[in-house]
């Protein structure tokens, strides 16, 4: 496969998982994660799972309302997730601390609202362990 300046093509196809630690609009790495995901999918690779951890859980917060001229990472993940049937997993422990809850958790924890965006699911840290075991590469997008 050809390699152009500033542009890698990874070959043969691999199974990637992504760990995302930063919130949208706080650090560039949240946006880099999405761009990386789009690129590897475009190049014919597979994404086994995207695991949102630490402040990264805010990527699944449906109540965030960024200005119209800024990128809406939650919406972008939803579109990409639907196109490619991505497993977009939000760490439940990290999400509870930061107030990203689905209906069930909001009721169980007696909180006034559920705000988990469609297309994302809450699950435990075991899903990160599972991703490590079942992917060729785990790419971390840090805080």
């Amino acid at each position, binding site marked *: 496969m050809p390699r152009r300046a500033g542009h890698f093509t990874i070959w043969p196809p691999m199974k990637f998982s992504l*760990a995302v*630690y930063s919130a949208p609009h706080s650090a560039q790495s949240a946006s880099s994660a999405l761009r990386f995901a789009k690129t590897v999918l475009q190049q014919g690779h597979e994404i086994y799972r995207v695991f949102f*951890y*630490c*402040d990264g859980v805010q990527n699944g917060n449906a109540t965030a309302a960024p200005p119209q001229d800024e990128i809406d990472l939650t919406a972008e993940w939803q579109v990409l997730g639907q196109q490619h049937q991505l497993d977009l997993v939000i760490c439940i*422990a*990290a999400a509870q601390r930061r107030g990203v809850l689905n209906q069930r958790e909001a009721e169980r924890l007696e909180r006034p609202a559920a705000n988990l965006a469609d297309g994302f699911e809450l699950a*435990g*840290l*075991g899903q*990160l*362990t599972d991703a*490590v*075991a079942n*992917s060729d*590469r*785990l790419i*971390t997008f*840090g*805080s």
Partner: protein
Amino acid sequence: MSIKSLALCRTAPYGNALAREGIEAVLAAAAMDQAVDLLFLGDGVFQLLDHQSPADIGQKSLRRNLQALPMFGIEQFFVCEKSLAEREITLEQIQVAGAETKTVKDTGSLIASYPTVLSF
């Protein structure tokens, strides 16, 4: 399902949630019988220091989580020798009961020897 991975602990224990959440991820992996080794480097070596008083700043002890690791089969900690020297921390100050502390000179080669690396 027996790939050994390496977790990098790079942040000081209480300034950033990443230190705690990193150790929590390691505990979760260990509880699932996934082999994980730890490498403390940079400010991450501060996590191992004894005589921490996190209650003074309203924090839970992270060292308590580290002390639980041997119970989950993690019985050795790799520590970057240069990071210790730069911070004038001695081996005696970073001992955790039930775990052997091994200093590492060439962290690059250690990291390169693992198929998967988790970075916290």
